[in-house]
Structure formats: C-alpha cells, structure tokens
C-alpha cells in the first residue's frame, strides 16, 4: 500500500497513510468488485428513487396507465381475436343495450352462468362481452382494432423516445461539458434543427421515403423532439461541470469520456427519463396526426388510421351517431399521453428537491408579509 508513484503536493516529509487516515483508510481503498458497484449504483439510482417515487400519486397513476398499455400490447393481443370486417353488425353502437344490458340478455354484456367469455385459448364463465366499443361501418369491432394497434404504437413511442433522448443526451452533454468551439458548433446545429418547422419537414421526408415499419416512424418523428432537450441538458451540464467533484475528477486527470459517463450522466438520468416520457408523448401526437392526414402509408391497425376511416368514410363529425368511431382512438391517445405526463411529473417531483425546499422555505418565512 505504498504511494511512492503518486506526486506529493505538500513537498514535505511524507506521512504514512496510517498516520493520516487511521485504520479506516485500509478499508476505503478496497476496490469494489464490478458486481458490488453495479448493485450500489442500482440502489442509488434506481431503487431508492423508485421507493420515493411510489409515494407520489401521480407517479403511481402514470405507471398504472403505462403498465396497462404495455399489458394490452403484450398480453392483450394474444387474448383478443384479430379484428376483421363483418365480425360484428355494421355500424354497431358502443354499449349496445345500455345499462339494462347488464341484467337483460343480449346487448353488450351478458351476466349469468350460462354465458362465458372465451379468449383464444380459454374462457371465463359468468359473463360475456359482445363488442362493447361498437363496430365501424364494415363491421370491424373497434375494441379489437384498438387492442391490436397497441403494439405498433408502443414500438413507435419507445423507438422515438430512445432515439430523440439519445441524440439529445449525446449532443447536449458533450456541448455543455466541452464548452468553447465544440459547444458553439453543436448548439448551432441544434438551433438550426430547432427552428425548422418539424411537422412539415417530417411530412416532406415521409412523402418521399414513406416509412413502413412502426419503429421507423418513431425514429423519423424523433427529428422534431430532440433539439429542445439537447439545449436543456446542456444548461444542466453547465452548472454540473463547475461542481467540485467534477473538478476533482478533472484534476485527477480522468478523461472527458470517463467524467461524462461516471460523474455527469448519472446526475442527469432522472432528467433524461422525464424527457423521454415527454418525447414519447410528442412522437405519438405526431404519428397519429400523420396517419390521420393519410400521409404515412396505411399498414397495420393503427389509432390514426382508425380516426382517418371514421373521419372520411363514416363522416363521424357530420353525423354524430358515428362519433363513437372517432372517439375511441382519440381517447386512447389522450389516456396514454396523460399517463406519460403524469409519470414525468411524478419523476420531476421526486428528483427536484428544489421545488420542495423552496416551497417549505416560502411557507415558513413569508407568512408575515404575504397577508393576501
């Protein structure tokens, strides 16, 4: 345990480590094994915040909604039969039979031991559902359509969020930390992309090279959402880079890459996660809009395509009797984006101690002057 190869800063007679740090020094210097380091990081960055996050009702709500959509996308598609035309009566209204269908036979729901709801592989006795969300003009059950569209939507959201957050993190963190010419250059590019009108650019790209796979749609839509986040991350890094522990790492001669990945990025993780949720929301907004306009190629079942069919073929806006056809896909979009925003807000609350601290300070100190 000698430190002969390390430069001594004081220049004086070197004291032994034992004298300086006592018995504990031995223990502190023990290198953590990789596994241990990971488990510590997991606890510090994932488990502890998760425990705190669960306290916030918005977080629970957001996670509940997201889990529900993931469940529908992964398990639901295996349970609910594939949608097809003429599976249900044409133009079937949602909740046919109304509330009385619960105790009467026929209608959207039947309860009783003689009924059973059959999934593809097994059936649950006691009740039966008959196309509760109605069917479109061609007799395609809307509920089945919604369920089978979910995997593609999730794929879009995930791909879009990963790509936009990835680009933003790479550009924003590098620019903020390096500063100088690299910063100006990267921010110049960011500004250029930011000032381009996003949707028209995506429309132009989609019109020339129509993306057919769901993940590709997500990637194309990510073009619009990374620059704002890159700028935000940069300004976060600008304050972090002045922190003393970052300066210590720099003095120790660690490479920029190490400092960025070990010291700075973990601090930004919550922020990145929050913005991933926001990016996911803007990707789904954009995707549905483009499918609704009929600019993206109609491939598989999709909420935007359902809206387009309801709008142009069922004339759902003019004929309000058909409004339910456009309502369900819109409701799905609103609910999933509400879930994503709730999740982001819960995270924000957890990782922004400043909000709480300021709040407490204000309540404590200003009572005498703010007398409303």
């Amino acid at each position, binding site marked *: 345990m000698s430190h002969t190869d390390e430069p001594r800063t004081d220049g004086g007679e070197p004291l032994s480590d034992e004298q300086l740090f006592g018995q504990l020094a031995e223990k502190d210097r023990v290198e953590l094994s990789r596994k241990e380091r990971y488990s510590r990081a997991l606890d510090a960055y994932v488990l502890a915040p998760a425990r705190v996050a669960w306290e916030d009702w918005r977080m629970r709500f957001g996670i509940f909604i997201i889990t529900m959509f993931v469940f529908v996308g992964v398990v639901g598609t295996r349970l609910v039969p594939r949608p097809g035309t003429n599976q249900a009566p044409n133009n079937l209204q949602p909740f046919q039979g109304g509330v009385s269908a619960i105790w009467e036979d026929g209608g959207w729901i039947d309860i009783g031991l003689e009924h059973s709801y059959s999934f593809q592989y097994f059936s649950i006795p006691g009740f039966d559902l008959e196309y509760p969300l109605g069917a479109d003009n061609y007799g395609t059950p809307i509920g089945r359509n919604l369920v089978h569209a979910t995997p593609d939507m999730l794929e879009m959201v995930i791909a879009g969020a990963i790509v936009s957050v990835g680009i933003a993190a790479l550009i924003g963190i590098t620019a903020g930390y*390096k*500063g*100088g*010419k*690299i*910063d100006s250059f990267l921010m*110049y590019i960011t*500004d*250029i992309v*930011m*000032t*381009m*009108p*996003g*949707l*028209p*650019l995506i*429309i*132009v*790209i989609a*019109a*020339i*090279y129509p993306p057919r796979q769901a993940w590709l749609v997500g990637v194309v839509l990510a073009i619009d959402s990374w620059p*704002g986040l890159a700028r935000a991350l940069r300004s976060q890094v*600008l304050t972090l*880079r002045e922190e003393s522990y970052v300066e210590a790492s*720099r003095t120790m001669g660690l490479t*920029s890459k190490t400092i960025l990945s070990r010291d700075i990025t973990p601090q930004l993780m919550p922020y990145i996660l929050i913005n991933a949720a926001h990016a996911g*929301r803007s990707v789904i*907004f954009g995707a*549905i*809009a483009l499918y*609704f*306009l*009929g*600019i993206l190629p109609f491939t598989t079942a999709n909420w935007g395509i359902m*809206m387009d069919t309801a*709008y142009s073929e069922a004339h*759902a*806006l*003019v004929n*309000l009797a058909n409004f339910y056809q*456009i309502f369900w896909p*819109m409701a799905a*979009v*609103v609910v999933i*984006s*509400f879930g*994503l*925003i709730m999740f982001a*807000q819960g995270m924000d609350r957890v990782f922004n101690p*400043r*909000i709480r601290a*300021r*709040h407490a*300070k*204000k309540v404590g*100190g*200003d009572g005498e*002057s703010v007398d409303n």
Partner: protein
Amino acid sequence: MRYFVNRVLHAFVVLISVTTITFALFRLMPGNPAQAMRAQFEAQAEARGQTVNPDYLDAMVAQHTGFDPDQPWYIQYVEYLQDIILYQDFGHSIFYNEPVFDILFTAMPWSIFISVYGLAFGYTANILLGAAMAYAEGSRFDSYSTVLATFLNSVPYYVGAILFLAFFAYQLGWFPSGGRYNTNLEAGLNVQFMASITHHAVLPIMSSFIVGFGGGALAMRGNSIRILGEDYLRVARLRGISSERIATRYVARNAILPLYTEMMIGIAAVFSSSVVLEFIFTYPGVGWYTYDAVIRRDYPLLMGSFLFFTIVTLIGILIAEFTYGIVDPRIGSGENNESY
C-alpha cells in the same frame, strides 16, 4: 448591436441549410421526386397516346422544378439557391400550373393570422393562469388547475379541433365548418367581410390556442414559485416596496423570461400545427396546400411550402429575439465559459 447582427446571420444560415436539405431530398437522393415527376409525365403522355420523347420529358421536369437534369449537381445547387434567394422562384406547381410562390404567397397571411392569434392567446392564458396558480399556491384552486392544465396538455390539438368542429360547427351550427370567409360577400374593407373572416377563424384559432397553451401554465407556476422563494424578494419586502410593484416588476418579469425563450421554440410548433388544423377546417393556408401537395404528389409545391414554413418561422423567431432584448436587458452580455 452585435447580438442582432448575429441573430440575422444565424437566421440566414438556417435558411441556407434548409434549402440545402430540400435540394438534397429533391435532387440527390435515389428515387427522388424529380425522377418520380418524370415517370408521372411519361405516364400522362402515354395515356394520351403520344410517343414519349426523353428530351421532352426533361424539358417538362426542368420547367416545373427550375433545374436542368443534364447539369452536374453543384451547378444545379447554385442555380437552385439563386432562384430561391434572388428571384423568389420556388418552381412551378404541377397540379395548379401556377408558380409555387404565387400560390403560397396569397395563402400565407391566412396561416399567419391563425397561428399568431393562437400563440398570443395561448401564452397570455399561460401567464395569467400560471401566475394565479402560483399566487394561490397550495390552495384547492391551485391543485384543480394543475390537474386541468395537465389534462389539457395531454389532449392533442387536433383532437380539440375535431371536437370543436363536430359540436360547434356541425351540431350547433354556431360556426362555419370550413373556408376562410363567406364567398358570397364582396371582398374588401367592409364590416361584414371582416366579421365573416373572424367568424371563420374562431375555431382554428381556438384549436391553435391548445398548441400554445400546452404545459406553459405549469412552467409559469413553477417559475413564479421558485422566484417567490428568492432572497431578493424578501429584501424588497423589507424595503417596503408595494405589493403591486413586487408582483409585476420582481416576480412577473423574472418568471416570464424562461417562458419567453420557450415561446421562441414554440413558434415552430405552432406554425407546424397548421398543416393538420388547416386540413381539418379546410382553411386554405400554407398548411392546407402542403397537405394538398402530398396527396397530389405535387413535389414543387410541397418543397415550396416547406421553405415557406421555414421562412415564416424564422421571421417569427427573429421578431421574438429582437423583443427579447427589450424584456431582458442582460442579453448580449454573453456567458463565456471556460472550455475544457
């Protein structure tokens, strides 16, 4: 002064970059619109039973796009830039058979009209609601408004537009379902005509309002609360400065600043949204022509409208930046950080 020059220069660079992108998408990429257009003309000629002459096709493509396919790409590029910047020549629309610039230039004021009002109303509402929420922080009003603002934030603007159109236009008949003004009226500066324009614009503006509204109220609330905890506010109170002055000069001004920068980013989003909104309300602005161009595969019109959107956005951002200097006197002092 250097700040302004810098901004204008920056806007110019953005314009050149965007033009380069359209040029690249238009000419250089494989399967580009120029080739698609050529195939289109070929099919048209064959349908009329004419023999297809390659030189004739080249001439047709050249007439509509304003470039000669036989030239090397860098000469095409220079000519393309020259056409757009010096002569405002954006090419020739295939479907309308008119210069793209003329079509879009007459459509542009309508798009700006909708977007600017939507943006202005949206941000005013943000600031007022956010300030009220911060003022009543922790109260029932605050928590209800927070939930409401969050919910509105998760409603896409086009969903709002669809609901408005279905209920206010088709069901209740309060507002027209499309168009820019009543075509039976004589166009001009008379009250009736102006009222007709306003009447037609209400629903698009209301939908565009949702775009501008977004999460801004929550941001304003957060900013105001953060500033309410600052030490300089306590000092101001101790000095006996009146509450109104504190509210307007100390809190509002500092809380609005971050929102102002956010608005500059929002300008692009608001103009972008007009593609969808003008489609829903059949409101013939630049956005509507963009949609039309995609559906009709009218590439010169499509590229032209993208450039128009960029130019309008750039001008909007420039105006916002110039006024930002008035709102925030610190601008231009420059934060020069040490580079590592």
